[in-house]
C-alpha cells in the first residue's frame, strides 16, 4: 500500500491510500470518493506529463508519499 497526496492549489488536498497495482483510473475514482468531484473530470499531472487512465501507478513509478498535481477538466 502506498499513500499519495494530490493537490490542486485551490484548496483541495487529499491523501489517498492505494496499491501500486491500481491504475490511474482507480486512483482517480478514489480521489473522487474523497473530494466529491466526478472522476472523469479529474486530471492527474506530474510536471507536464498527464497520467493516462489505463496505466498502473507502478508503471508510472509513483511511489509512497509522492505529490501529484490535481487538475480539473
Amino acid at each position, binding site marked *: *500500500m502506498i499513500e499519495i497526496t494530490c493537490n490542486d492549489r485551490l484548496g483541495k488536498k487529499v*491523501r489517498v491510500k*492505494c496499491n501500486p*497495482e491500481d491504475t490511474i483510473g482507480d486512483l482517480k*475514482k478514489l480521489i473522487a470518493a474523497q473530494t466529491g468531484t466526478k472522476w472523469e473530470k479529474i486530471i492527474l499531472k506530474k510536471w507536464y506529463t498527464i497520467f493516462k487512465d489505463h496505466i498502473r501507478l507502478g508503471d508510472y513509478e509513483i511511489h509512497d508519499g509522492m505529490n501529484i498535481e490535481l487538475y480539473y477538466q
Partner: protein
Amino acid sequence: MGSSKHKKKDKKKRHHSSDSSDGDLSSKHRKRRHPSSDLSDVDVSNKHKKHKKHHKKKEKPKDKHTKYHSSDDDVIFVPPPPKISRSEVRTPPPPSLTPPPPPSISSAADSLSIDETNKIRAKLGLKPLQMDNKETTKSRDDGLEVIAGDEGEFVHKPALSLTEKNKSDKIKARIAEKKEKRMIENKILNVKKLADSDSEEDAVSWVKKTKIIQDEMEKAKKKAQELEEMDNVFGVGDLIEESTKSEMKNFYSSKHLKGLEVQHSMDEFIEGKEVILTLQDKDVLAEDADVLVNVNMVDNESYKQNIDRRKQRLNYSGYDELEEMDIDSPSVVLGKYDEEIDGLKKKSFKLGVDEYKLKRDTIKEKLKKKLNQETLNTTQLKLASDYYNDTEMSVKFKKVKKKKLRVNPLKADKLERSLLLASNNAKENDLDDIDDVLHERPMDTYNMKMENEEDDDMGLQLALKKARKLKQLEKIERKPDLADTLIKTEYNDNALGAIVLNSTAEFCRTLGDIPTYGKAGNREEEEDESLMDYDKNNLKQEHAVDSDESNDGWREVEMEKKLIDLKTIDSKPILEPEPDLGKGVAGALRLAMSKGYIEKEENARPSASRFAHLQAKNYSIEDKTFLAEDDKLSRRDRYSGPTVEFREKDGYKPNIKLDYIDDDGHLLREKEAFRYLSHKFHGKGPGKNKIEKRIKKAEQEALMKQMSSTDTPLGTLNMLQSKQKETQSPYIVLSGTKSTHQNHGGSISKTKIG
C-alpha cells in the same frame, strides 16, 4: 542554535565549577573535555562515542535543570528555545503504517483510514489495500484470490480488462492461423509432383502393358478381316452399301439450305471461316420464312448501330451526286427518319443465290437505258470570231429619242406685242393671259430636258419658274429703253433656250460666283431686289397654302409689317422733348447724350465683333444649363425657377489685353510674365547662370530672326552663284588643289559626272 549551546555550556561550566570546583576554565578544549571526563565512568573513549555524547548532552541539561531547580536558586532558569520543543513533538513514535505527514502538509491534507478506503475500494470493485505485514491472501484453485479482511473472507474478482482480452484474442487468432497453415502445408507435401516418378510403374511393367495393347489390336484386325470375308461370301456388303447411299441422299445438305435467308450482309462472312447460323426466334403463329442468324453477329450489328447513333452523322454530306450514283440506295428526303418509320432495314442474302450477279445485271440495264437517252456527241465546237455576224448585227439597240428643244427666233414685232400685252396685265402677273408667243416659250423651258438629273426636283422647278416670271416682269417694267430690253431678253432667251442643265454646265456657271440658294449665278444684283418683291407679292397668296409645307425649319418673315412700323415711327415728331436738367444727374446725362456731347458706349466698344471667331461655336453657357436641365430636371425645379437669360449686360463684350513688359522693354510671353511676377512677389531673382542662359537664348533668337532664309550663314550659295557667273558654266569644279595638280585634264570629266 549556536548561541543557545553557548548558554548551555555556560551553565555547565558554572555547574561544573560549582560541582567540581575546577580552577582553569579558560580554554574551550577543557570545557569540552570536562563533561566527557564526567561521563568517563561509563564510556571508555571520548572520541568513539562522540555522537552519543552529544545526545546525552542534550538530555542531560534537562535533568540537571530539574536538579538545579530544586537544589540551587542562584542559577537563573532560561526557558528552552522553541527548537527544542519541536524535537519533543517528534519524539512520539509514528505508527508504522501511516508515516508521519510532512510538516507542510499535515494541516491541510485530509486522508481516510485504511478501513474506510477499503470500504470505498470494495464499492468501486477494487482489491483491498495490500498490507505488507499480513499474509491474508490465499490463492484458490480457480486463480482467484481469497482475501481475509476484517469482515470475513471474500474473493476479489478483478474486472474484465479489455486490453487483456484483446491480447488473448489476438494470440488465439494467430495460433489458429498457424495451425491452418501447417495443415495446408501437410496437404501440399502429400501431393505427388510432376517430376516424381510413379513408384509402381517401372520400365518392365510399361513394356508389358504396351505389348498387351499391341496384341489386342492385332487380334481385332484379324477378327475384322475374318468377318469381312464372311460378309463377302454371303453378299451382305452390297446391301449395306446401298442402304448407306440412300441414307446419304436423305442427309441434310447445302441443297436443302438453298433459298434460306441469312440476315447478315455478305461482307461479314469471311472465306475459310466457319460460322454457325441458327434459326432466328420468331412467333409460333407467324408465318414468316425462317431466317438464319448468328448470335455474335447480331450483337456486333446492334453495337455498330449504337455507335452510329451516337455519332449523329450529318444528313447532308454535300456529295449528293455521288450518293445518287449509288444504285442500291437512291437519295431520299430526310433519310435519317427512315429507320424510325419503316423499322430497321437489315441486309440479308439468300443462300445459293448469286446476289452480285443480280446486282450487276440491274446496273447494266440501267446503263443501257441511259445510253439510249443520251448521246455522247455534244454541241459542235466553233471558232470564235472577233466580229459580229449578220444575225448579231441585225439586233439593234433601242434608241432613246431625244426631245429637241425648239427655239423660236424672237422677232421684234412679236416682242413688242407681247410687251404691250404684258404691260396691261402687269399687276396680275398671270402667265395664262400672255400671248401665245410668250406662252409657248416658257412652256418649252418648262419641258426642258435635264440630263442626268431628276426632273421631279420640286425646288429646282420652283426656282426656275420664279426666274422665268421674273424675267417677264423685268421686260414689262423696263419698257422705256426698248433696245436695252431687247438685248437683254435676247440674251436671256438664248441663255434660257440653250440651257441644258447638266452637272458640268451648272458647275461652270457657278464658278466664280457667290453661290446662292435657288438661283443660278448669272444674274445681276438688281435681280435680288426684284426677286424679293416678287416673293412679297407671291407670299401673300401662297402663305396660307405653304404654311403647312414650310414647317420644316425655315419660316418666312412677313416683311410688310416692318414697313408699317416704319411709317408709324415716321409719324412721330422728329425731335424728342428735351430731357429735364432738373431731374438730377441722370437727366443731365440724357441731355448730353441727346445733344451728342457724350457718345454712347456701344460705339466706343470697337472690337466685340472682331473676336467673334474666338467665341465658342458648339458650346455655350446656355447650352450647358440646358443639358443640365435635361439631366436632372426634377432637382432643378425643386430649388429654382426656370432659367432666365442674363439680360442686364447683354451688349457687354469686354476687350481686354494684358501685356507684360520686361525691365529691358521686351514684351513678355505668358510663361515669362509669370516668372517675372513670381520673382517680384517672392523678392528673389534668378541665379546668375540662369540670367546668362536667358540672355544667350534671346541673342540667338535675335540672330535667327536676322538670318536670311535663302542662304547659308556663310553665304556659300551666293558665292556659288557668283562663281558660276564668272565661269559661265552650270557647274563648278569641286576638286581640291592636289587633284588639279595631278590630273589637270581629268577634272572636267569628273565634274561632268558630278
